[in-house]
């Protein structure tokens, strides 16, 4: 596992935010996933070593929180909100539109490694339902037409790429 120097620097900085090292578990996992895309076994052991924990302490955290991925996901991670307010406004149609556009089922990766579609629970933007997140960007009031336009942008390579890690503060 090769972490970028900027990631390592941010990891060392974030550990100082807490009086107890273990508290940095979630921040470290986020930083590693932003850098290498998912949380492999060696990342779990690395975090455990770094925070002076047992591997199981980190493993149980990784498997509890839905945002941590044990396997690589597409470079464009499309999260469609499934919960009630979005569903009332057509969230299921939006999700199906994305699946048709990319020819994949939920949680799969397209053969080119580009796209994963996930049907996630509430994204806390119910007033502009249905909503979709593509990597870090929120898209609001997404109709099937708008979903097709977003899919076209992704195919053309213009929709959001993974955000580069923000500069260390």
């Amino acid at each position, binding site marked *: 596992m090769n972490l970028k120097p900027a990631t390592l620097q941010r990891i060392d900085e974030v550990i100082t935010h807490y009086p107890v090292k273990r508290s940095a578990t979630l921040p470290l996992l986020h930083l590693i996933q932003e850098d290498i895309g998912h949380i492999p076994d060696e990342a779990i052991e690395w975090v455990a070593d770094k925070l002076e924990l047992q591997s199981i302490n980190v493993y149980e955290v990784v498997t509890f929180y839905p945002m941590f991925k044990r396997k690589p996901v597409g470079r464009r991670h499309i999260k469609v909100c499934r919960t009630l307010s979005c*569903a009332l406004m057509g969230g299921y149609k939006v999700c199906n539109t994305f699946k048709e556009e990319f020819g994949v089922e939920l949680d799969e990766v397209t053969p080119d490694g580009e796209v994963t579609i996930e049907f996630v629970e509430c994204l806390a933007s119910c007033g502009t*339902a249905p909503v979709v997140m593509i990597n870090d960007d929120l898209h609001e009031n997404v109709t099937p037409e708008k979903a097709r336009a977003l899919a076209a942008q992704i195919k053309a390579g213009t929709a959001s790429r993974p955000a580069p890690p923000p500069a260390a503060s």
Partner: protein
Amino acid sequence: MPDAPQQRRIIFQHIGEPGYTPDIDCYLRHGGYEILRRAVTRPPAELRDEVKQSGLRGRGGAGFPAGVKWGLVDRKSGKPIYLIVNADESEPGTFKDRCIIHQDPHQLIEGVMLSCFANDVKQAYIYIRGEMPEGARILERAIAEARAKNFAGPNILGAGYSCEIHVHRGAGAYICGEETGLIESLEGKRANPRIKPPYFPAVLGLYQCPTIVNNVETLCHVKHIIGMGGAAYAKIGTPNNTGTRVFGVSGHVRRPGAYEYECGKITLGQLLHDVCGGPLPGRKFKAVIPGGSSAKVLRFGETFTLKNKDGSTRELAMEDIPLDFDTLAACGTMGGSGGIIVMDDSVSMVEALANINAFYAHESCGQCTPCREGSLWMKRITTRMVRGAARPEDAALLKSVAGQIPGRTICAMGEGCAWPTQSFLEKFGEEFASYHETKTTPRPAGAPQLV
């Protein structure tokens, strides 16, 4: 029905205002941090009294009086006191805190610093849900700006008081909105809520130290309470339901969005008809969940018999319910997080419940058997019904499962996951009872798929 009153925008004063930006210069141009500047010259206990006098009730869900919560903090333990901002905003239907974080982050930071000063807190954490990466970056930038101008960090405004704030991101688990689950998560563990007693956060919270956990909107109110004084704030709203509330309306209305009104000064009907523009063209309102998806559903057209203080009773139509904590509770539901989800006559209540049940089954932390198993079985039964295999006994089965969860779990999710099923059955029993007959007809055109 009289026309709806005007909005009273205190928390949302600048939200949505053209030209208002989340940077500190804009905030300072609008008088930002003046309240903190004045407050750090006052004794902290006096500030706590202002909050107590204000009658402010928590805006995250439970509506617990914030001044009382602060009053429970163990100040004699000799351990540090922590403050955690609950920015996990995870109750479906709720989106007010996102607006505050994205558009007016310094209002929150000022509220946090005031609350920290009032409670002698030296370290605060903002626990923000993982699905708000942009919000986390905005808050980190705002904290850095506030620190650079000496509103946070060492020796704040020369008052000899120091306090740091850090942003901590969650990772997609609803249960982190429960305050002891949140504390476990902030300690780097699974967010399994803690048993109370003994683990009341005010005594044994983060790192077993006294800890205050307050919602984003609640802490913003603190800023305005210290600014205008607790007594003046208590005059806003209605007795025991003071201040303003931000209502987030979503679902089947013409103008969904966030609206701020004095607590109890607007009725549900006024909000949904006059403010939100009524139902979509050609539709009728059918049901509303008034305080986030855990809150018990209300049916349009129903009436309630409520007790008056003198022992007499009065009839109250559902659309005339004033939006406050106490009346909604008297009507058997709750104001919760202020997230109001509206459903019209295109919606099958069985499908809507199946959607909600899928959420709670996904989000149970798994620690307590009644919640872990009960939420799963309620999901399985309602999903099976929607998928064409409904049975005549399903309503009774759902009622039996839901009835075995509340009061038997460590945290309130036991109630939260059972209340939707219990109230949908109670209010729309005929749809559940006859579903095995009607399900043979396809979903009507224009009806949303919910499962």
